[in-house]
């Protein structure tokens, strides 16, 4: 009989989860791809971070009181596509390490450089040189969306050509260098028929952990939840039949989801993290930068010269679930795990506020909860053990 600890379908692998300060460097607003679901609506090849700006931002982080007590820091490099600026990133990382050492900053002993990349440049000499140099302090997540069909539906070059072949060739090297890395899959409306085959495909490629979510935007139509639920139930059957739960994870299935709220916590970490743009301006996260927003102006919380504007940060640090949710969400019996993005909330709200929760994914979340219940109940029965005893 399989023991509970052999069920790994809902494991998470974040480094020092909940204990780190994440600082995101938006090194470029450019990308080789024009993914159809991408929230970066204003990508361009003009706005790139200058090393001088990055240095000043690092100096601010290491010298400012707000960060002086942080013992674990993650410097997150994103874009656009961060690997387009790997030489700049290499210089930033070197500068950070030297300064942290010279200033005897507590984070010198506990830091990570983290990337989310489209993977196209992963095997290039410059990137590989950087990886070799920083391997023990690196987390790299390559985004591959599943099967070739699913991936190429969304992740395309400006001429419309799919990018799958150019990414998948780099996956073996990535897995060899980072055997415990996860990928992040995004599901938009056209992708619904390909969820099951995509998750199974990624596992077959050797990507053991698949973080997957549906887009928060207003793209969903009535009836989409039926196809979504069918896909997840079918995937659940396959996972149980093939015992994939012993080796692989997929974030669609979790013991934590589908319960009434017990705690009044915010879902999103915006404001507890910080993003820095190419001009050295600070944001609660990269979703509040102008090239991420469709309807609203950027929402800054400071810059390296003036520091953090504590007044602008206050709303983010007092955000809770109840203040931004509708009564039906607060009372929802399937509430836990229903995600929201603070930047998307801000972008889609009726007024320019972060206190109005977008609920476009409501029907899909409930479908996910039903499929998730199906999975855990069926697996519990098979293993003759109640696997969700905590709830």
């Amino acid at each position, binding site marked *: 009989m399989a023991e509970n600890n052999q069920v790994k379908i809902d494991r998470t692998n974040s480094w020092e989860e909940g204990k780190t300060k994440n600082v995101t460097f938006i090194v470029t607003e450019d990308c080789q791809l024009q993914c159809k679901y991408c929230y970066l609506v204003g990508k361009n090849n003009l706005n790139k971070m200058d090393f001088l700006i990055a240095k000043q931002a690092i100096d601010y982080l290491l010298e400012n009181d707000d960060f002086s007590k942080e013992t674990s820091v993650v410097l997150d490099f994103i874009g656009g596509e961060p690997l387009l600026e790997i030489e700049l990133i290499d210089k930033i990382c070197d500068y950070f390490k030297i300064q942290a050492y010279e200033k005897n900053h507590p984070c010198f002993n506990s830091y990570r450089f983290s990337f989310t990349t489209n993977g196209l440049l992963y095997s290039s000499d410059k990137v590989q040189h950087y990886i070799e140099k920083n391997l023990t302090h690196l987390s790299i997540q390559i985004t591959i969306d599943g099967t070739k069909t699913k991936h190429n539906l969304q992740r395309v070059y400006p001429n419309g050509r799919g990018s799958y072949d150019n990414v998948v060739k780099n996956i073996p090297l990535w897995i060899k260098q980072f055997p415990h890395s996860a990928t992040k899959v995004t599901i938009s409306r056209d992708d619904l028929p390909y969820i099951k085959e995509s998750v199974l495909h990624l596992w077959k490629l050797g990507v053991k952990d698949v973080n997957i979510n549906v887009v928060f935007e207003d793209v969903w139509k009535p009836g989409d939840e039926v196809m979504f639920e069918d896909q997840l139930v079918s995937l659940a059957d396959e996972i149980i039949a093939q015992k994939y739960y012993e080796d692989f994870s997929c974030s669609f299935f979790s013991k934590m989801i589908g319960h009434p709220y017990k705690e009044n916590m915010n879902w999103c970490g915006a404001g507890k993290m910080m993003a820095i743009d190419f001009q050295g301006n600070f944001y609660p996260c990269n979703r509040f930068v102008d090239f991420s927003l469709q309807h609203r102006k950027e929402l800054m919380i400071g810059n390296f010269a003036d520091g953090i504007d504590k007044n*602008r940060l*206050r*709303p983010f640090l*007092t955000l*809770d679930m109840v203040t931004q949710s509708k009564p039906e969400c607060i009372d929802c019996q399937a509430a836990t795990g229903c995600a929201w993005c603070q930047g998307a909330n801000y972008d889609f709200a009726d007024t320019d506020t972060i*206190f109005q929760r977008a609920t476009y994914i409501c029907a899909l979340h409930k479908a996910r909860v039903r499929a998730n219940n199906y999975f855990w109940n069926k697996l519990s029965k098979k293993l003759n053990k109640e696997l969700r005893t905590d709830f």
Partner: protein
Amino acid sequence: MFKYLAIILSKSSVSYCAYENTPFDNKTDDLISLPHLKNAVTFALKNNLKVNFLFPEYDLPLEYNALIDEVEHIKIVPLQLYATYQDSILVIQPKNLLQNADIKGLKDGNVILRVSKQHLPQLHTCISMLAPKCTRINLVLTDIEKYRDEDLDEYASQLAQISLYIQDSLSGNKIPELNFLTDRMFLAQMNNCNAGLSHLSVAPNGKLYLCPAFYYHNEDSTLGEIKNDVEIKNKQLLELKYAPICRICDTYQCRRCVFLNKKLTSEINTPSYQQCRLSHIEREASRLMSIALKESKNFTRQIETIPEIDYLDPFEIAQKHKIEISAFKLINYANTKNENEIGGESN
């Protein structure tokens, strides 16, 4: 449920809060049009709203005065007009007082004192000049975004001096009402401005605003034309229970100014650290004064007990201790029930 309507008679009408008006240029372009004024007065009459008219420094045309007198109202006027409108609320600035403005005739006045950071060191002097002639003084600090720690210390010092002055000039139970010092002693719940909840404003362009400050800051922030069903999007965020910092706070005298919240923190439901600290300095001054008054044999009015606390900014508390879901539901549903009952009565 709206109870009041502020009507700004002209762009250069006196400011009675933490915003600046438009300097007077010419009368033609300054005044609200007569049709707009009539529309606003009619709206007030139809909806049982009392009106606060904000006056400019110059005399109004006769037909304007006739319309104004059609509705129950209070006039809010600059100091220069107090001889003309003696039953009005006067708006005074320190420079008026300190430049020997004629206030000899002022008796039992109800005044709004607008003080900038520059004049903060003269606050005690201004209050001591006005208090003998006033039943109520509402203090407005006009530029709190500029306040730093040393200014907060100065404010605390001024309040301490004013408190001693009030105690020294105590005559029986009679003390002047000072929003920043005495209000808290008689309050058992929040007594905020409530813009957008209990009152709205009509600007010289004839449109509705949450309050005059929104009009002067950005004319485009209008709620739209005057109409019976005023739509305020995300109106719940104006309410106390949707303000994570304020709903756990007991500085009941705080204006909880949604305009300053928006201006300084980007969110109408989140106060700035300056707002919280200033209000808590007032609370502490009120607490100390209430203790002194309770010990005074001459003062026998009932005073609320103000607990001693060790913080100046409840943000720190709100950040650590989120309100319980069950507590929020209790407030939410209790208030929803009350609102429905009020709606039923009005129908």
